[in-house]
């Protein structure tokens, strides 16, 4: 019915205006640096570009690395979905105390530097971790039964640990606004719960599910720290190989070819996804989450919820707890020091954070580092939303079923949608060097500017912002917009009074992603961070790179502080209400 209503078309100029900021941003801070570094790299190829291409194409090592990169990413993505979907169901359909906190905590892994996550898993599963020590004591074993470090399993587990939050957020929030009466109707008509899920819920979830799977896959596909630190020297992905070729061998031509391969894979995936998602998106009656979540009434609901909460806590919160615990406990019993061994509770690591014993010029108090991190994160949220909201709106308007014949605007919107994903699939070290060679002339000499950090973070956050918003925007019934237009509202007013209230929840999700992505380590080492303004992850890396109990303890203490800052930040963002479904 909707599609048959004839209305005057929205002026295409408005849509172009909405697309332009994000497109310009991408061109200036992504394509320009990338093209420049590619040009510089290929110019260094002794035998010309053809020789490099032949070298890479003919290399069995590169083929092996490529195959492993795809394989581990596919497996990691499946596992992440397997863990994330039940969790998304839990957060979408049940209402229980502590839900907001659980949701915030599940996002914390996202911000933790890999080295710290390795330390957390090591406290749990390492040779002298709690699990091994417990099993050895219980079964009187002489060697630790669980091997974790340098295994394929460690890579998979860490990927699930990092990325489950993407599924929980993108799918869970969309799910929570699906009308439960649709499933109830299917059930009333005799469908089994499995059939109702398969034939009603799953197709409706498809856009959000596809978006989540795509983002998780790209993250795993370009995985760096997890492969390097937890996987060990027997595993390599394209991203780790690009880094090795760039930094240790300074073989820029080969690195550039590998980076291009990685990029083309990402582009292929995102184009396929964009086409698919435009086809499956359907207008829906979205409901407010508070209307669809049920309290845990029946014992069965309580059991289900209990199991799901238990699973999420064991997988995502336990390693965090191990880390936090380790930051307040001395474990020095095995060390060969004179004098009595001291174990037990200590706040020494936290106190040490506030001291600059050696009068080091580069010392930063933790409060200042947190301030720097929060400033960069806030700037990222503002910039990513300012660019992402209009872009998402234009993409959603052009890509959905309501769109009429494809025209130039529509093609541009869909192209931008696909291109926005590229920074996620780009090697950080390549882009970092791209900034050096491209942004070197005033007024764009940003190479040593503190602005570079939020700009780079925004590149990573933008696809998340757009991915969070587009499914929600597409699900708005065009009828509402058309009615508003009939009553004389201009496009901007339609957007403000129809779209924004309806997607308020998705805006919160988008803001949370931008916040956590910036707070985490993304791009922290790839670009020049001025020492006057180091962010928390930079300081953590500095500390854990030095020997000594106090340095290690301080790194864990600061990581714990980062977890708290992240949790509080997310809870604060979620308190903002941009507008909720159900106000009509």
């Amino acid at each position, binding site marked *: 019915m909707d599609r048959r209503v004839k209305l005057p078309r929205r002026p295409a100029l408005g849509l172009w*205006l909405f697309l332009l900021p994000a497109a310009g941003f991408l061109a200036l801070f992504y394509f320009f640096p990338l093209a420049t570094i590619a040009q*510089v790299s290929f110019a260094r190829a002794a035998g010309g570009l053809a020789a490099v291409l032949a070298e890479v194409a003919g290399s069995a090592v590169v083929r092996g690395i490529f195959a492993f990169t795809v394989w581990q990413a596919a497996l990691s993505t499946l596992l992440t979905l397997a863990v994330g979907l039940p969790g998304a169901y839990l957060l979408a359909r049940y209402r229980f105390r502590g839900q907001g906190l659980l949701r915030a905590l599940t996002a914390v892994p996202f911000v933790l530097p890999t*080295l710290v996550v*390795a*330390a957390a898993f*090591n406290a749990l599963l390492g*040779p*002298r971790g709690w699990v091994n020590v417990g099993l050895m004591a219980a079964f009187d074993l002489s060697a630790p039964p669980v091997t974790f470090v*340098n295994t394929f399993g460690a890579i998979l587990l860490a990927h699930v640990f990092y990325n489950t939050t993407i599924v929980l957020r993108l799918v869970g929030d969309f799910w929570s606004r699906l009308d439960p009466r649709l499933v109830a109707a299917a059930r009333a008509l005799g469908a089994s719960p499995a059939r109702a899920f398969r034939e009603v819920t799953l197709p409706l979830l498809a856009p959000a599910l596809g978006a989540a799977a795509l983002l998780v896959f790209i993250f795993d596909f370009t995985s760096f720290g997890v492969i*390097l630190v937890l996987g*060990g*020297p027997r595993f390599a992905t394209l991203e780790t190989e690009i880094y090795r070729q760039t*930094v*240790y*061998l300074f073989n820029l031509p080969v690195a550039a070819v590998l980076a291009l391969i990685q990029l083309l894979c990402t582009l292929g995936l995102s184009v396929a996804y964009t086409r698919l998602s435009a086809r499956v998106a359907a207008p829906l009656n979205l409901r407010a989450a508070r209307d669809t979540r049920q309290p845990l009434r029946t014992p069965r609901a309580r059991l289900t919820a209990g199991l799901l909460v238990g699973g999420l806590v064991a997988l995502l919160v336990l390693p965090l707890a191990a880390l936090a615990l380790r930051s307040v406990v*001395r*474990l*020095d019993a*095995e*060390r*060969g*020091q*004179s*004098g009595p061994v001291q174990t037990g509770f*200590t706040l*020494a690591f936290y106190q*040490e954070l506030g001291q600059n014993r*050696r*009068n080091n*010029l*580069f010392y930063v108090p933790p409060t200042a580092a947190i301030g720097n991190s929060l400033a960069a994160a806030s700037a990222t949220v503002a*910039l990513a939303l*300012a660019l992402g909201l209009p872009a998402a709106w234009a993409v959603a308007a052009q890509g959905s079923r309501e769109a009429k014949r494809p025209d130039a605007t529509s093609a541009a919107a869909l192209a931008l949608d696909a291109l926005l994903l590229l920074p996620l699939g780009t090697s950080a*070290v390549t882009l*970092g*060097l791209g900034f*050096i060679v491209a942004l*070197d002339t*005033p*007024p*764009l000499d*940003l*190479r*040593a*500017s503190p602005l570079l950090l939020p700009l780079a973070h925004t590149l990573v956050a933008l696809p998340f912002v757009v991915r969070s918003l587009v499914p929600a925007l597409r699900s708005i019934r065009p009828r509402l917009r058309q009615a508003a237009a009939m009553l004389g509202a*201009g496009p901007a007013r339609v*957007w*403000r009074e129809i779209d924004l209230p309806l997607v308020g929840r998705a805006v919160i999700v988008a803001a949370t992603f931008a916040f956590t992505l910036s707070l985490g380590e993304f791009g922290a*080492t790839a670009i*020049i*961070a001025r*020492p006057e303004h180091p962010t928390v992850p930079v300081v953590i890396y*500095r500390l*854990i*790179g*030095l*020997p*000594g109990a106090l*340095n*290690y303890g301080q790194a864990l203490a600061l990581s714990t502080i980062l977890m708290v800052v992240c949790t509080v930040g997310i809870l604060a963002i979620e308190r903002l209400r941009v507008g909720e479904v159900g106000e009509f």
Partner: protein
Amino acid sequence: MKAISKYGLFMAALAVALAGCAPAATARATPSGPRTLTVMTHDSFALSADVKAEFEAAHNVTVQFLLSGDSGEALGKAILAYGQPLADVFYGVDNTFLSRALDENIFEAYNSPLLADIPDVFELDPQRRALPVNYGDVCLNYDKAYFAERGLRPPANLEDLVLPAYRDLTVVENPATSSPGMAFLLATIGHFGEDGYLNYWAALRANGVVVVNDWETAYYTEFSGSSGAGPRPIVVSYGSSPPFEVIYADPPITDAPTAAVTGAGSCFRQIEFVGILTGTPNRDLAEAWVDFMLSPRFQADMPLQMFVFPVNPNAALDPTFVKYLAVPDAPVSVDPKAIAANREAWIEAWTAAVLR
């Protein structure tokens, strides 16, 4: 119109912010007020605040540091910024990367008068484009308590590690991804020669050596002598790690829990260099900074900030530093040109022998 105007406002703010950078970038050229000297270096750089202040006061200059990643990353950035240098001076290229820096011509020669005080053995670039600043050794470290409890003699040199008594005790870093890992590979190449090092590594592999990708995992996850309390009592680290363990102990201790293996030919000596970046508009200040880095004032500050040795013998050494720091008997060195020429081939051969 709300969204658009909000957006316009933001872009305007961004434009102002961007424009704000422009004067900052060109400020170096203006004669009025204190000038700025920019020093590009790696993330491990550290310095006492008052030492920097002294230089700034003496030369009416503001010194800015760009910490640009680990030593390989920082050097890569300096090379790619050739022609539009990010800074006036680059500090922190070591002898394993020296040839790369020199081949790329990123440094201008500077015949500092202070080089007269510095032993010739440190001067690896006869054209004086890269000037030595400090040195340190990559050595095996061991957990003293582990060996004391078992009545086992701690390892004294590289050869010990392949003995049956030391089976499954050692963790090393991957030379393809780690700077100390590369240095340790070079120690074995220097010590056993190009003909012998692969045999040594094969024996080490047969004796259960574990390889990890980075120093942090080796030291904090696998090594039993660190606060990470791992399972293995021998690790590749630095000669200066034991003093770190004392100075940053909690609670305070008087004796280091770890020690470095310093037997002849078991450590690799890393020398770090400073150079004036080609095309700097502040050549006079850059020269003054290089002289300052080689002077006793700066040199004496380095040991307790970066846990490295000064190359200038006139610099006084802090007693804490000297007490716990083992000086290797005859550290290994390998010609930087040979390193540059063979780095990839050596790593490939090592990977085939140890990992595959």
